[in-house]
């Protein structure tokens, strides 16, 4: 049967592809067709599989995704998944047709359908997931798409609020679910759904069972809008009505139910399961029904009723009895049909009358008779009237509650609460239907209502028809599907249940009659009271939404404010102090255990000691001068850098020395370019008081501790013999494996070339960001005046001043300029030399790139930017793009030849004239690095240097104010 499994992956890809298609759909055609077509195709595939699925077969498809982590992309479609997929596709088609006429053409329809289709794919991903991590991924995807759809009208504040609330609640639940999934994988040893489902006893007996259960429950309850997370669903009603019908009643909110049913075989049957799932379900059932009774907005009634009905399903799942599972599945189908139909009807009323407020509606039976009839059927199904599907699942629910055996008072309570909730459900259904369709015609509605377009009624009609068909001929219509789904959850131990209208005069029927009668009485008695009522009786002061808002305010306002008061963000010093203090503390904790095994230094090299004294002197001097004499500090750090470079040579690391020297020069020039724009010192601004002196002493201590700690770390690292396995591997394999004698370079461009690729990517991104930031930067007015250092300088000769911004004096620095011209070709040649021989001897793309940049810099300094730009075409962006693509292409080339990404090739041979040649493909990679480095450095350089040739808009440069 393997041939029939291949379409599984196409089935999951289909909605996503369609989603992309809808985004670029031509304007001439309505994007709704894409969604209708997708749903129809999906149903066709399901229909093709139907014979097998109904026989209990499982369609599986697997692809190794990250085999090293034990992660597969796998699809697992059994009866349960098929039932939910049926809902996703079936209701999807109807919603697409409905939305085609509900959404006015001037709305951003492409966005709507793109998101709806993306949701369709994400929801399918949940139900078809064969791997729990994959399930969590799609779970989060549905939260995200739901967020975007609730915020569809993002101009409205309430929509944005609602979207954010929904995302925080369901996203947080998803995080918990991820924890639960990881724990499941940890207990079982595999993330594969088949493996997890096969090890129920292992999971239930594991000491981690309770934690896992709680985490998974948090995910399921938040997604299904169950108490105490129910508050996001009514808010989510600010989404367009098709979204409410599709996501927030028929499919997405049922994901929590799906999850619990999916893991029913391995998690259910314990007391923890009963109390956790059952209690949440019972509270949601009653709370939702009670609040729904008090609502005036049609969609709000339906939303709270959804919470209530989902609570009912949860409760049945929570009982842990097999009949409960069957009843839950049955009610999932029934609720999806009548609730989606009612949502669409409410949308039609809103569409026609312009309001959803019960107080402003009435008598619509006369104005829109067909819609009224359809809504009456679905509403009656919601109330549980016989001959309709809601009646049957309610009977089954009563039967389940009667079968409860958790102790006397629990059993009695459950039965009473069930009747109570069913009665309330009758009452709010009556309010909804009577208030909208009966009574005198309301003249209060903004528009004069009439029948909605025919195709808007068709989906409602189909769903209402389904309510009737299931209600009258349940075994024929849903019997097989329900059986397959229940068998997928329960396995062989299916309970005895009968799908038929008349079971005889039984206890569930008595309960039904009691609920119906009490609901009617409640409605009649409270009718006029409820018509005026704004808030829900008894529980209005305690609202979960208010608690949530309080928590959000705590987290986003109160806590940050407190934290800002304690660690003021305005004073960076305080933050730095905390940061470095903590780092030093942690480091001290680690280092203290080495303190008594610090090896004594061996022979002291006098020369090196002198060099280091000199270097440290420079470094300390730089630190001392850094605050007020930036240029001096820069020079001193140059001295320190030189000392480091000489040390590298002394310790036989010419590679590092070359890099250090070139980086030193480039950095100095770049810093000098930026130095010009830093604010000047304001004399007398900082007074030296005992307090500042104390503060400085503290800073000095922190600096000494941090520096000393770093030094000690380096000292320890150098004196401790390291396990040499890694470095020996590199040294031994550089020539045979990488074809190069320069181990450092071989590591960079071959062994760890993926890291290097990442690094040059980051480098390119950094350069582009700098360019982006500085492109719009205009220097501050204060820094426009002539630099004060230039005023102090002896060369403050008026003749030396440029006549206008960007002007270059001819003959200025003439000797260096001439020398630079002579040296540059050799410097460039040297750079090429460094690049080419880099694989075998010190050098490489990075160093060569820096060298080329330096040549450009020195030319710019000596001859001016304009001179250079007139002669050399510098296009840094192209350099970056070329280099990065070349590096990538080198790696991909290996893949084309069937080797792993970034595998290098090297070989050697003899040529007639040139002698032996040796070549490694890593040279191309290095060439890419080289080009990126050149591009990045020149881009930053140009971005900085152009500041000086550019005056701020509308401000004349202050060069003339210079005293002579």
């Amino acid at each position, binding site marked *: 049967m393997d041939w029939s499994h291949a379409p599984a992956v196409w089935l999951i890809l289909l909605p996503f592809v369609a989603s992309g298609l809808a985004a670029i759909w031509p304007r001439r055609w309505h994007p709704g067709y894409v969604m209708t077509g997708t749903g129809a195709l999906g149903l066709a595939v399901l229909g093709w599989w139907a014979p097998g699925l109904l026989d209990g077969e499982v369609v599986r498809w697997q692809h190794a995704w990250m085999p090293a982590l034990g992660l597969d992309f796998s699809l697992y479609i059994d009866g349960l998944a098929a039932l939910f997929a049926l809902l996703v596709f079936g209701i999807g088609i109807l919603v697409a047709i409905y939305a085609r006429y509900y959404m006015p053409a001037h709305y951003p329809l492409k966005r709507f359908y793109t998101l709806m289709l993306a949701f369709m794919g994400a929801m399918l991903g949940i139900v078809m997931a064969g791997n729990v991590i994959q399930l969590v991924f799609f779970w989060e995807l549905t939260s995200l798409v739901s967020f975007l759809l609730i915020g569809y009208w993002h101009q409205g504040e309430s929509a944005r609020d609602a979207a954010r609330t929904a995302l925080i609640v369901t996203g947080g639940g998803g995080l918990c679910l991820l924890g639960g999934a990881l724990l499941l994988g940890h207990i079982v040893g595999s993330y594969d759904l088949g493996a997890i489902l096969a090890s129920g006893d292992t999971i239930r007996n594991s000491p981690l069972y309770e934690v896992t259960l709680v985490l998974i429950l948090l995910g399921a309850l938040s997604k299904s809008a169950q108490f105490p997370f129910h508050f996001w669903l009514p808010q989510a009603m600010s989404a367009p009505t098709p979204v409410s019908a599709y996501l927030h009643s028929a499919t997405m909110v049922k994901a929590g139910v799906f999850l619990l049913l999916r893991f029913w075989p391995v998690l259910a049957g314990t007391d923890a399961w009963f109390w956790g799932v059952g209690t949440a379900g019972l509270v949601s059932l009653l709370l939702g029904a009670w609040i729904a009774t008090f609502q005036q907005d049609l969609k709000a009634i339906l939303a709270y009723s959804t919470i209530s009905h989902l609570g009912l399903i949860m409760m049945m799942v929570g009982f842990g009895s097999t009949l409960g599972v069957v009843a839950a599945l049955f009610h999932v189908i029934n609720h999806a049909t009548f609730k989606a139909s009612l949502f669409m009807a409410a949308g039609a009323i809103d569409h026609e009358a312009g309001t959803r407020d019960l107080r402003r509606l009435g008598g619509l039976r006369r104005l829109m008779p067909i819609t009224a009839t359809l809504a009456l059927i679905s509403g009656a199904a919601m109330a549980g009237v016989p001959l309709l599907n809601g009646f049957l699942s309610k009977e089954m629910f009563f039967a389940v509650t009667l079968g409860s055996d958790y102790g006397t008072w629990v059993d009695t309570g459950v039965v009473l609460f069930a009747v109570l909730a069913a009665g309330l459900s009758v009452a709010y259904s009556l309010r909804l239907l009577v208030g909208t369709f009966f009574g005198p015609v309301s003249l209060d509605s903004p528009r004069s209502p009439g029948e909605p377009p025919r195709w808007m009624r068709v989906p409602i009609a189909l769903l209402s028809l389904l309510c009737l068909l299931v209600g009258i001929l349940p075994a024929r219509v849903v019997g097989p599907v329900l059986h397959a789904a229940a068998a997928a959850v329960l396995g062989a131990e299916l309970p005895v249940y009968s799908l038929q209208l008349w079971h005889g005069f039984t206890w569930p029927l008595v309960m039904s009659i009691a609920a119906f009668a009490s609901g009617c009485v409640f409605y009649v008695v409270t009718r006029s009271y409820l018509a005026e009522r704004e808030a829900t009786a008894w529980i209005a002061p305690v609202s979960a939404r208010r608690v949530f808002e309080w928590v959000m305010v705590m987290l986003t306002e109160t806590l940050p404010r407190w934290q800002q008061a304690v660690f003021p963000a305005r004073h960076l010093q305080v933050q730095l102090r905390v940061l470095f203090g903590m780092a030093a503390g942690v480091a001290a904790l680690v280092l203290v255990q080495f303190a008594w095994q610090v090896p004594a230094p061996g022979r002291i090299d006098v020369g090196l000691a002198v060099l280091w004294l000199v270097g440290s002197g420079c470094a300390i001097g730089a630190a001392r001068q850094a605050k007020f004499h930036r240029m001096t500090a820069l020079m001193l750090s140059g*001295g320190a850098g030189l000392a480091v470079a*000489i040390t590298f040579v002394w310790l036989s690391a010419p590679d590092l020395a070359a890099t250090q020297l070139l980086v030193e020069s480039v950095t100095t020039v770049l810093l000098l370019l930026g*130095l010009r724009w830093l604010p000047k010192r304001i004399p007398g601004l900082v007074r030296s008081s005992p307090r500042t002196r104390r503060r400085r002493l503290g800073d000095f201590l922190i600096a000494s501790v941090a520096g000393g700690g770093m030094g000690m770390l380096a000292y320890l690292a150098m004196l401790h013999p390291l396990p040499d396995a890694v470095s020996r591997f590199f040294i031994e394999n550089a020539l045979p494996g990488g074809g190069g004698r320069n181990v450092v370079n071989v590591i960079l461009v071959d062994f760890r070339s993926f890291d290097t690729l990442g690094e040059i990517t980051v480098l390119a991104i950094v350069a582009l960001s700098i360019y982006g930031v500085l492109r719009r930067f205009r220097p501050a007015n204060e820094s426009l005046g002539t*630099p004060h*250092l230039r005023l102090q300088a002896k060369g403050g000769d008026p003749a030396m001043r440029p006549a206008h911004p960007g002007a270059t004096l001819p003959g200025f620095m003439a000797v260096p300029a001439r020398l630079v011209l002579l040296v540059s070709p050799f*410097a460039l040649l040297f750079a090429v030399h460094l690049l080419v021989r880099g694989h075998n001897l010190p050098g490489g793309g990075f160093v060569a790139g820096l060298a080329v940049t330096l040549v450009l*810099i020195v030319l*710019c300094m000596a001859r*001016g930017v304009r001179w250079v730009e007139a002669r050399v075409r510098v296009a840094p962006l192209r350099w970056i793009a070329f280099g990065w693509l070349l590096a990538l292409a080198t790696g991909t080339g290996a893949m084309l030849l069937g080797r792993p990404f970034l595998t290098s090739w090297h070989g050697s041979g003899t040529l007639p004239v040139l002698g032996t040649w040796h070549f490694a493909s890593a040279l191309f990679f290095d060439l890419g690095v080289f080009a990126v480095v050149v591009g990045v450095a020149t881009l930053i350089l140009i971005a900085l240097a152009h500041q000086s040739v550019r005056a701020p808009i509308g401000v004349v440069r202050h060069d003339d104010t210079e005293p002579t």
Partner: protein
Amino acid sequence: MLMSSLASLMLLIAQLLLLLALAGAVWRLLRGPAVQDRVVALDACYTDGLLLMLAIALRTGSILYVEMALIIALFGFITTMAFAKFLLRGEVIE
């Protein structure tokens, strides 16, 4: 034998003297007093570094260290030039 030990002794002395010169230049770098003094001192540091590398190259007999000296020779003056330009013109690149 004697010659080689004499040569290595001379090289050691040369290195020490160069280091002393470096220390002197750094002293000027630290003390100033004028900015120009510091720039000249930094340039002297680079020259000292170049010579030190040559001395190391002679001691170890490795051509690679000569190349490091070459790098200083080719690129070391850029820093000095940048500072000079900054002091004279206020801009490094115009």
